[in-house]
């Protein structure tokens, strides 16, 4: 299987959240992201730091991860970013 690069993994995580009505609990997100716990924790921290996702405590469901508007914009522009990176071999 082809190794996913960093931007692709970020896209995949954000896509899972989007397809789950914009929010998801930690455990199913870890499972659906196909990453080890350690790597998932790194990506989660990075996505939070880049403000592509946010974590909120919901009264009924507990702690959930939400897709931010910036995260949504990343998904919309992902193809263009990848094309740009490939075109300039960055």
């Amino acid at each position, binding site marked *: 299987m082809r190794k996913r690069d960093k*931007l692709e993994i970020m896209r995949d995580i954000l896509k899972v959240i989007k397809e789950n009505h914009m929010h998801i609990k930690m455990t199913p997100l870890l499972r659906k992201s196909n990453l080890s716990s350690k790597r998932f924790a790194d990506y989660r921290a990075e996505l939070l730091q880049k403000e592509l996702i946010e974590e909120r405590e919901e009264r009924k469901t507990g702690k959930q991860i939400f897709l931010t508007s910036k995260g949504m914009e990343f998904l919309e522009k992902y193809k263009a*970013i990848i094309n740009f990176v490939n075109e*300039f071999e960055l």
Partner: protein
Amino acid sequence: MAVIEQVLFPNTFGMELIYSFVIIVCSLLVYFSTKKMYDLSKYQGIKYFRMSFLFFAIAYFFKSFISFLFLILEIHEILEFSTLFLGVLTLFFFMYASTMAIFYLLYSVVWKDFKEKRFTIPLIHILVLVISALSIAIREVKILLGLQIFIFLFIAIYNHFHIKKLKGSKKPGHLHMIYLILFVFWMLNLADLLISGFNPILEILISMVSIGLFLVILYKVVKNVGSS
């Protein structure tokens, strides 16, 4: 009167100003049009690419400023110019910005091959600052030209092995060639400024090819950014 004549007369300062202006605008357009992409992805390669064009804009600004000072102060030799305080200052910023522009463009392509990334950029900044200061202090601009030739050779050799490594469906990008030509013409630009007595026709040729290369890169950037 002589100043007015030189400003109006093509192939001198007027030409230099237009030429630098076009390249500065192209470079800044590349820098600002890719801001959104970088803000969203925080991708290192995009960052280095953008930084390269920011430094190209700064370098060309100082290049035209140096030409302007040459004209105003009626100086014809870079060594004479480097005895003035303003001359030393502008030369220093020009040398620093031009070398960093070249370095960032190279690094935007090869950064993934470097394991240690935290100290690379600060170290290069310090090194280039020291070399720029040194070449002015000992009044030997050829040191800087030598450094740029060294970077160019490194790129050419790296490029050769990188293309060799690519297999099957992965074709080598033609952008490497554009970068190599860009470096060659940047060094000719430097030589034009630092070494007196350049052929005017050659100066025009360097200017035209340089503008063409920046326009090609800008077109490719706008095409990609526009599609998002």
